[in-house]
């Protein structure tokens, strides 16, 4: 479950960083406007999503070269029935044809129909996605509230015992498969202490019902949060360390700003920027984590939906889920970039 590395094309470097006089300003044309940047990003995002669909489509086709007919209809079906099924759903067309059809479908907002669940894919996802989002949001928020101060604390106490201890702890948590963590959490809280029930109610529970009895959320949230804390406290630590060695910290100290004040007023804001950048890229990891957690706790979110569909070979659902995640990731990273720009006047300026 490796988090994405910091992107190669990092935050736009400040424009004129030549020593001495600012270099000649580039002719401000339409190409440097914010709008053009947005357009460029959107196009790139679309390309990424398109590539995702190509990858997944080809994989699924690899899985079922003759169409999902055999899997859906079961062992009893004979060749004729399978062929009829495949033909009816267009699975005997050449692959690229199927892909184009699929693209057309998506453009119309139709994600297809699930074979096993007998409902449109979009309905199935719409029923389960909010619960995953609830879980993910809770995990993320709690994790950040814990991880960010922890990272700053570690950076300030670098090299001392607290730093080593927390680093070791972070590594241990990071190195534990989340289902193992979940297991330990279940054993400790559900079995031994009997504070909360171990398994979440599966099936068609709505978000509101979940919220009304939050005890079922406790274990999944704890399990999901631990991994995120381990990752983000390290990010915050290294971002803070980087900033602590910057020149502007020295200038601030020379003004008479105390060490604590420097951290709070200067360093934290600047350290947040790269960490926020990571949030956008962390989304796929989040979803991946949710898959495991939901499976372990039988939590009725999109991850569980995906798992069940994979076991049953329910083609359209699998495609639909991945598409949603890819879109979410791309939108998420775009939002993260925009948030960064909002925080960092340099990116704002370079885009003006």
């Amino acid at each position: 479950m490796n988090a994405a590395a910091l992107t190669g094309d990092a935050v736009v470097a400040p424009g004129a960083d030549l020593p001495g006089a600012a270099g000649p300003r580039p002719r401000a044309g339409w190409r440097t406007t914010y709008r053009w940047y947005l357009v460029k990003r959107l196009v790139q995002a679309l390309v990424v999503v398109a590539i995702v669909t190509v990858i997944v489509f080809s994989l699924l086709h690899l899985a079922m070269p003759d169409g999902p007919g055999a899997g859906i209809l079961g062992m009893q079906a004979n060749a004729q029935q399978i062929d009829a099924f495949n033909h009816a759903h267009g699975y005997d067309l050449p692959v690229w044809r199927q892909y184009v059809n699929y693209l057309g479908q998506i453009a119309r907002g139709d994600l297809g129909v699930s074979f096993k669940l007998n409902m449109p894919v979009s309905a199935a996802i719409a029923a389960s996605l909010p619960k995953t989002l609830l879980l993910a949001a809770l995990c993320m928020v709690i994790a950040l509230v814990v991880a960010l101060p922890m990272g700053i604390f570690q950076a300030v106490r670098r090299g001392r015992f607290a730093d080593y201890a927390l680093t070791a702890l972070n590594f241990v948590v990071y190195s534990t498969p989340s289902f193992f963590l979940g297991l330990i959490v279940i054993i400790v809280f559900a079995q031994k202490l009997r504070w909360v029930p171990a398994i979440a109610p599966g099936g068609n529970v709505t978000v509101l019902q979940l919220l009304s009895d939050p005890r079922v959320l406790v274990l999944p949230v704890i399990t999901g949060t631990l991994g995120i804390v381990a990752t983000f406290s390290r990010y915050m630590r290294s971002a803070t360390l980087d900033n602590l060695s910057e020149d502007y910290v020295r200038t601030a100290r020379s003004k008479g700003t105390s060490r604590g004040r420097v951290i709070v007023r200067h360093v934290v804001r600047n350290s947040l920027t790269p960490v926020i950048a990571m949030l956008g890229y962390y989304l796929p990891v989040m979803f991946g984590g949710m898959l495991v957690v939901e499976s372990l706790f039988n939590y009725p979110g999109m991850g569980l939906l995906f798992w069940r569909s994979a076991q049953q070979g329910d083609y359209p659902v699998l495609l639909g889920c991945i598409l949603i995640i890819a879109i979410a990731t791309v939108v998420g990273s775009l939002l993260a970039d925009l948030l960064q720009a909002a925080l960092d006047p340099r990116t704002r300026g370079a885009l003006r």
Partner: protein
Amino acid sequence: MSATTPPAAAEPVLDIDGLAVSFHSEGRVVPAVDGISLQVFPGEVLALVGESGSGKSVTSLAVIGLLPSTADVSGRVTLAGESLLDAGEQRMNRLRGKDVAMVFQEPMTALNPTMTVGAQIAEAITNHERCAPAEVHRRVIELLSRVGVPEPEVRAKGYPHELSGGQRQRVVIAIALACGPRLIVADEPTTALDVTIQAEILDLIHRLAASSSTAFLLVTHNMGVVADVADRVAVMYQGRIVEVGAVRDVLQHPTAAYTRRLLDAVPRLPAAQWDVIEAAPAGGDAPAAAVAEPDAGMREAALSFDHVSIDYRRGGATFRAVRDVSLAIGRGEIVGLVGESGSGKSTLGRAALGLLPVAEGSVRLLGHEVRQRLALSRADKQARSQVGVVFQDPGSSLDPRMTVASVIAEPLLIHRGPHGSGRRARTARVLELLDAVELPRDYALRYPHELSGGQRQRVGLARAIALDPSLLIADEPTSALDVSVQAHVLDALRSLQERYRFACLFISHDLAVVHSMADRVAVMLRGEIVEVGTSQDVLTRPRDPYSRRLLAAAPSPDPDEQLRRRTARAALTAPATGRRPW
């Protein structure tokens, strides 16, 4: 060594007595400052001058108490009677910014990029005084105008990245001045700035020192800066002070041997004919193309630029870095190319090496057109074997993973042949080259990190002449080196040129260095050549207004000459000719 008679009244603002600083790292103890004593009096500018490793920066950090935790400090440092070294952290925080302030070297990174300029200056005030916000704002604006930042109201609301290097340094100075400190410690405040900007900042410091009783401790390696603004100077060498005295005395009649050596190593421009310059009409036509061609009688030029324009892309926008430049370098001739940042001089050099595409015009190397190509044709490769290049940064000019021998031998591998192929021939050539640049033969097996900056530049030189080129392009080859080291490397380059007679395009921002090397000089400003001529002409009787300003801004270690330049500068910039280079 005791100070000579101080300029004014008795009590020193800063009194350093027997200060010693050493660092412990990785189990070793490294001494940096070895017991120095120094005094700075109110209203005076004391320059602390030395090369790298002299301990001058460490001293400045010790005064303001910002040394890293790996430092061991002993001795006494008193500020207006109060001992700084035993003051606790809290007391030091109260003193910093209020009684003693600091200006650092790198203006581009000295300010917090996400905080407005005004807020950062305001912080200096609110750290120490309780003040109504309106009052703080008023003071911020007033400080910004005092340091010469135009449109202070607008700038205060803006961010650091909107300002140029010179302007940022002014802001840093404003921060230092905020509470009217008794002492301002400035550590190489102008080193990272262009020469003309440097001159302006030094003017500012000069004015501030003259108009208040604030004392300045100015740390620098540049003798010209010392001659320009300092009243007294202390020379440091290897952690000790070797000489102290009034600027005139020390710079014109040095007593210590090291001072003498240091002053000898500084390249000097010949005295310019300021009366001629000032008498000539301001903004007179600079016949830019006057001596773009080498003397008649020279045959094919080693390197020629023919109406060359080069575009530069940045973030989707293109702008012209070099604009219609024509210049020719004859065989065996050294031509200097001077300019400040953004002038396009380095860009031109890179185009000559085929590293950048040329938008218009052509660059010819020994008659062969140079183009940036994906794959080099045979003729291209042949032409390239005739060029050598030396770059500026000794830290990145050599591949850290290769031995000196491999670095020097690489051109020989790329172009097999001219000096015999085969290992033995190459090794022989490498040793021969090491001798030529005066490096011991056993350095062949060393790695770059085991060499000093000057030695690395020599290795770069050896690599450049490995194929016996007809042309050498030197892009700021000594700008990152200490003055004494620079002198040696330049000597080496000069003797190599005399021996091998290659043509040379010598790119630099330092007029004095260019004068010591080049036969002809071209001055560039914002992508264009504004003046071309013999070294003597351009550097003593420049005609173009920018060249004149450049010359007037070039620091000279002779206080009298420097004074003349200062007045010339004032005269040249007063009638608002040409742009303020902001």
